[in-house]
């Protein structure tokens, strides 16, 4: 039974281009009280843009209604559970928004003199210190603008480190359960990628790893807990194997929401890692971004961090550009500063104990879902789950229903789908990450929905195969969209031309 949602009327909405009519305006300006100037005369005709053909002309109320109507078509974290595994779609507390909108921070300009930016620089310094403490690392750069950007920065640091020793080395090892960005990152930085197969517990196989690590290996990129939501229990041994050959261990910190306040990558052998502030530290995510992907390193990698670095001089913060071994800049200015403010507000509001509790709640919520769903869906690996649980669609596939069909039916029940078909090592993966911000009531609604769908699969698989039934658009033609993409909207031919 669908309990969370009822059918609700939403308004149809054309594109602004389609509601345009000539001469409409969304603004009013007072009459000029100075003589009018011809821009072409003042600036040169070549600098003046002509009319843009078909540029939409609409009134203020039309614009407001347009975007408000569109927003009612949307699903976001403010409407309910958003269980996208590996994405940590947690609720973003409003107080972080209030702090980030503090006037002095909101209007701070990156070209403002250092003397007038001490508060902003203090925020950057405090966040770096907090993230270093949370990860057990020695130094942090806040510049990278997203997770994949952080990965690339991290692997560039590894390369710079090896180059400083005379040999950049050739390979990066990556488990087959890794995020797809990991191999892309290693390749972008000029390494070849060697895939490592997971064992039957969904973990890195230590023996086979030991047999392939040699002096050509620059490093290992590992996600911990990994993408099946399982903690790599052999991580200390794994790091030892790499370090013995002079290789580095990179940790993809996408799943750090399972570790904060409980264990620290710096204590289990990691040399360099990134964090996703927009996942673990509750800054806006997806379309609400931008993101931030700070990179934390052990002291031997610190000389290579991007410039500028913060330095304290006579109780004043200064930017230090004089770092001969740096990999250079990876981002204009100092990263996505507004996001950094939100993350520090989140960390300080929680404190150490609060962050640890948040992690424990995230683990509890994932395991609660796992226990209740295990009678209905096949758990992918028996190993204990951390902050997310991964099922496979094995049982439902026997009735012809796959993970993508179940996900689409979940939309009818009023939930955003879980992560579908990832990680690739699980056939028909259903990856569920509830995060700590969901109440038991919301989790129960979600579990009930999935149990109800499991029953529908048995009794009436067609219902699930044709879902969603309640949305404006049901299934789209993904194949034609990919094979013959239409990349640009074009206006319908005007009536007069059509008649020609």
């Amino acid at each position: 039974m669908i309990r969370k949602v009822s059918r609700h009327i939403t308004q149809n909405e054309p594109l602004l281009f389609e509601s345009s009519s000539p001469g409409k305006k969304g603004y009013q300006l007072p009459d000029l009280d100075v003589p009018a100037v011809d821009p072409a005369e003042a600036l040169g005709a070549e600098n003046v843009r002509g009319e843009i053909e078909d540029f939409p002309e609409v009134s203020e109320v039309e614009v407001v209604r347009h975007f408000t109507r569109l927003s009612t078509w949307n699903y976001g974290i403010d409407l309910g559970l958003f269980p996208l595994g590996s994405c940590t779609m947690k609720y973003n507390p409003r107080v972080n928004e209030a702090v980030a909108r503090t006037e002095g921070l909101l209007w701070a300009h990156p070209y403002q003199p250092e003397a007038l930016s001490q508060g902003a620089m203090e925020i950057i310094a405090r966040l770096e210190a907090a993230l270093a403490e949370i990860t057990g690392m020695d130094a942090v750069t806040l510049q990278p603008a997203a997770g994949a950007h952080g990965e690339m920065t991290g692997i560039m640091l590894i390369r710079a480190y090896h180059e400083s020793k005379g040999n950049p080395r050739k390979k990066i090892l990556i488990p087959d359960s890794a995020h797809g960005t990991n191999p892309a990152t290693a390749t972008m930085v000029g390494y070849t990628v060697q895939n490592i197969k997971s064992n039957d517990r969904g973990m890195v196989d230590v023996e086979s790893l030991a047999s392939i690590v040699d002096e050509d290996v620059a490093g290992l990129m590992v996600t911990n807990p990994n993408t099946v939501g399982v903690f790599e229990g052999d991580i200390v041994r794994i790091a030892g194997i790499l370090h013995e050959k002079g290789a580095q261990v990179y940790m993809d910190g996408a799943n750090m929401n399972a570790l904060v306040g409980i264990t620290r990558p710096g204590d289990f052998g990691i040399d360099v890692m990134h964090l996703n502030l927009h996942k673990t530290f509750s800054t806006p995510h997806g379309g609400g971004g931008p993101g931030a992907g700070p990179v934390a390193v052990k002291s031997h990698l610190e000389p290579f961090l991007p410039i500028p670095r913060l330095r304290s001089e006579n109780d004043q913060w200064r930017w230090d550009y004089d770092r001969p071994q740096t990999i250079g800049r990876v981002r204009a200015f100092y990263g996505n500063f507004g996001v950094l403010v939100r993350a520090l507000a989140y960390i300080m509001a929680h404190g150490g104990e609060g962050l640890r509790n948040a992690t424990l709640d995230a683990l509890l919520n994932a395991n609660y879902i796992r226990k209740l769903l295990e009678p209905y869906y096949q758990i992918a690996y028996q190993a204990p789950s951390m902050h997310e649980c991964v099922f496979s669609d094995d049982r439902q596939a026997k009735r012809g229903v796959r993970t993508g069909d179940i996900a689409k039916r979940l939309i009818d029940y009023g939930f955003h789908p879980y992560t579908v078909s990832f990680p690739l090592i699980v056939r028909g993966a259903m990856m569920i990450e509830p995060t700590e911000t969901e109440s038991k009531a919301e989790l129960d609604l979600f579990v009930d929905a999935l149990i109800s769908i499991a029953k529908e699969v048995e009794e009436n698989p067609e219902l699930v195969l044709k879902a969603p039934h309640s949305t404006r658009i049901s299934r789209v033609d993904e194949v034609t969209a990919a094979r013959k993409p239409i990349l640009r909207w074009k206006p319908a031919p005007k009536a007069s031309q059509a008649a020609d």
Partner: protein
Amino acid sequence: MYPENYRYTKEHEWVLVEGDRGTIGITFHAQKELGDIVYVDLPKVGTVVEQGKALGSVESVKAVSDIYAPVSGEILEVNTALADAPEKLNEDPHGEAWLVKIRLSHPDEVKDLLSAADYQSYVGS
């Protein structure tokens, strides 16, 4: 289902060896698992590939998957028709939708590959 004169990999490629020449493709099982294929990325003629290493990739609406070379050698010919008609990989994976032709540098590698019967029982269909 799986031609007797082809040899197969556990990564779901096939190779038809004739003398020192081989024709390479992906199996019926591979295209079925991938779903509708929308893009194929193949190497240039003259590229030297190594057994077990990626020689290209196929993209379906679900995922991008590497294609691994079943045997080592030099690429002699590429099936350029697939660029405009990737759906052929779903329609005729063992025939018209071959991917590349190769000159085998180590013909003895073929003995590492699966027979049609072994591959059939490996994929269980």
